[in-house]
């Protein structure tokens, strides 16, 4: 895996936007931010491990990976309903990890 810290930070930003939408469900405020916290930590850990991997493990080409993460972020940004935003707070990181060739959890 090549250095993906830049693209992954765009996913992290997308998670923040999903959290902002999801937190409008008052009863779920804490859960929304718990989800964001644990998944951002997981994504950043993957970014650090990927940057240090030598040689890089097999996975999608850099161009395919870039396109995948761009498209996943765009998909997350299509979600306007706060309930679905909460669903996507869990789905986006799992899909991102699959795109990277990582275990999705």
């Amino acid at each position, binding site marked *: 895996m090549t250095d993906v810290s830049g693209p992954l930070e765009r996913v992290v930003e997308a998670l923040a936007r999903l959290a902002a939408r999801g937190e409008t469900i008052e009863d*779920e405020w*804490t*859960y929304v931010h*718990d*989800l964001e916290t*644990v*998944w951002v930590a*997981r994504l950043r850990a993957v970014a650090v491990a990927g940057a240090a991997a030598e040689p890089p493990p*097999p*996975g*999608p*080409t850099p161009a*395919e*990976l870039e*396109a*995948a993460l761009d*498209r*996943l972020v765009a*998909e997350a940004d*299509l*979600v306007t*309903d706060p309930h*679905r935003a*909460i*669903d*996507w707070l*869990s*789905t986006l990181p*799992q*899909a991102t*990890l*699959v*795109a*990277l*060739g*990582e*275990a*999705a*959890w």
Partner: protein
Amino acid sequence: MRFQDAAKDARAVVYAGVQADPLVARAAALLADATPPQRVLARAVMNGETTAPESWRTMFPTLFGSTGPAEGSPERDRSEAVLAASLAVAGRGEQVRSQFRGAIVEAVTELLLERRVGAGAIRRERRILFDGVAAEIHPYDVTVETPGVAEAYDCKWGARGISADVLHQLDDARAHAAAAGGRLLPVLVVFDARRSCEGRLARQTAPRTGTRLVTIETLDRLSGRRAEVAS
């Protein structure tokens, strides 16, 4: 401890129609044999907005990209089939797809359990009755009914479906069975990552130590197979 078919109220009749839809069976059969990444694909598509398959192929390069399984290979064909079925579910509209997603998780659970205990021991939409105890209103999605040992499954599409009510109902069944000298294993099946489920459970005060949690990455344990370690 006794099992009983749930009453056929109006909601149950409508939901039975969803459960019987061929699309549910088709999606469940695919997901029962899917890899963890293919299950994540299904989760994303059924949760998603985009209806163009090419966009999803772009989002999942390890399944559809140049370094993924070759076109025409069984693995690639299954990814395409999962994508097509998931798009068909997403295309049913928000309200209906929510019901379909739940029914699919139940159907996948049933299929995987069949591989371990055989179809004859598995029932759907059953209530569990104990002498001297008021019966729960909501039936269990799936039960395994074998002499001496029973299993009760509550199936959820996402971690957000985990609630105090669900946890209490599962644990109550376990406790009542034990009090009656029987054994009942309560299981919560969630088509979502354990990381998200643990976040949900961390805020719950309802009892959960006697309830087994099966998540999207460990679904295969229902069939007696160990989960894959990596995607």
